[in-house]
């Protein structure tokens, strides 16, 4: 069980504050779970310089230098590695898919936390306040961020169980709630060749959406198909490079609040997560209706 947050900035003057605002939102949700946390940041020019392919790695063996060398060798081009907490952020002057293939070849045992242009996905074990400090999240910039804090059940809390799941290019998914029939859907996806990193129910939702997007569906259609296929109680936030979508299941017991101003759109599991956003006093605030996909694009 968890807390989820998302912030989509419309006003470029707020881009320098993305990290600061996202940090506040995420830490407000620590009471909902503080065993592990993850964020996805779109557009930080230092972490993910424009025009470069990006891959976020977790549990990669060796120090930054050795990882960089190995991946560069597999890629045939130079690779920069940034250490952010336990995450190793790789960037290179190639397409993200190519960089991803090289990273997998160089470090087959590592977890791919995310990949895609302008996307950094940071995950870790521990409470949100400590993790966000280790990442330096408060100083990050960009146009969109998504975050998740987790109440884990496994004694060995692992990064592979942490959200966001970024299983397609520039895609992220975070989830509050639990699915009830994901085991079967996981089997079907595996039979179709999809590989899983964990036994987590959220990952099944994420890979389901990713396969639909890869097949050419838009995000609204993919989420409608998810609602039709998955049982359970869930609030989902799915982000792409330029879009941000929220949907809840038909029964809608898990909490969700959306707030919108001319400058930003934000979503959180509780209003508290949004209470620090600039101009929230004037925001339109509502709770998403069940099975309605709310989407915003840049």
């Amino acid at each position, binding site marked *: 069980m968890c807390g989820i947050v998302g912030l989509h900035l419309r006003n470029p003057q707020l881009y320098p504050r993305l990290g600061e605002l996202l940090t506040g939102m995420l830490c407000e949700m620590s009471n909902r779970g503080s065993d592990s946390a993850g964020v996805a940041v779109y557009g930080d020019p230092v972490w993910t310089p424009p025009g470069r392919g990006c891959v976020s790695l977790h549990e990669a063996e060796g120090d930054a230098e050795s990882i960089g060398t190995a991946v560069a060798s597999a890629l045939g081009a130079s690779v920069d590695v940034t250490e952010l907490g336990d995450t190793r952020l790789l960037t290179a002057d190639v397409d993200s898919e190519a960089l991803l293939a090289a990273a997998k070849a160089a470090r087959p045992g590592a977890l791919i936390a995310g990949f895609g242009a302008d996307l950094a996905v940071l995950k870790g074990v521990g409470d949100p306040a400590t993790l966000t400090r280790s990442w330096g999240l408060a100083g990050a910039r960009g146009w969109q961020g998504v975050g998740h804090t987790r109440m884990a059940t496994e004694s060995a809390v692992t990064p592979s169980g942490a959200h966001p799941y970024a299983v397609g290019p520039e895609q992220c998914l975070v989830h509050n709630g639990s699915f009830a029939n994901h085991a079967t859907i996981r089997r079907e996806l595996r039979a179709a060749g999809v590989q899983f990193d964990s036994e987590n129910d959220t990952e099944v939702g994420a890979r389901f959406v990713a396969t639909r997007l890869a097949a050419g569906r838009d995000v609204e259609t993919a989420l409608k198909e998810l609602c039709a296929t998955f049982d359970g109680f869930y609030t989902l936030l799915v982000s792409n490079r330029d879009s941000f979508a929220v949907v809840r299941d038909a029964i809608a017991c898990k909490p969700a609040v959306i707030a919108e101003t001319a400058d930003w759109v934000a979503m959180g599991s509780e209003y508290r997560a949004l209470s620090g956003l600039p101009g929230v006093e004037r925001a*339109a605030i509502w709770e998403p209706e069940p099975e309605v996909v709310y989407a*915003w694009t*840049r």
Partner: protein
Amino acid sequence: MDTVTSSSETSSSRERSSDTNSSRERSSETGTSTTFDLRTVSLRDVNAALHAPDLEGEFVIECPAGAHNVAVGIDAPVKVTVDGHVGYYAAGMNQQADVTIEGNAGTGVAENMMSGTVWVKGNASQSAGATAHGGLLVIEGNAAARCGISMKGVDIVVGGDVGHMSAFMAQAGRLVIRGAAGDALGDSIYEARIYLRGEPASLGADCVPKEMRPEHHQELGRLLKAAGFADDDTRDYTRYGSARKLYHFDVDHASSY
């Protein structure tokens, strides 16, 4: 299923101003007034102070910033104003007190209230007034899903809309909705009465429109007046209640279960 896609528009039907037509006055000069700032005093200490025996006077709670469990379990004829937004279960199990929330309320505001008044100036999240036995809950804005779920005698007046599954298993009490209602209004309702001015997206199992007799107009009029909506015309409202077909199991109604 719908999709709502927007790039630069805001969903204006959702905007609810908090300066609506409440005519309720608040006097701050009568008796003693004590202020708590939740930035510096712990919630536990605030609630403990509000549980003191023979409590009297007026209280203000500042900077709640969406905190949960604010002003729960009061049992005294006092006035409490919460200056800001609250999280879950604000004024839970309230007895006798008049609690005003100058902002939005999270899940379960006034849950299991026994008596007194809880007044939300903004919007309320899910399960507003859940299982409450008495008193009056006013929400000037909208209430989300499950408003009045399992209500057991409370009166709830909502200035705007209510979400889906409102008055689910509502056993007793009255729910007045000045706006529209979401899907499955009054699903599995027992003896509670619903007065709806707008349209229900759909009615729940065993919930049917009923005749508005003079006593219902009077009852509705009293509730609207108590909530600051005395100018409403009760003839604009439809009464809903139980068809009482689910009171004894009948195999022919099995699909309702």
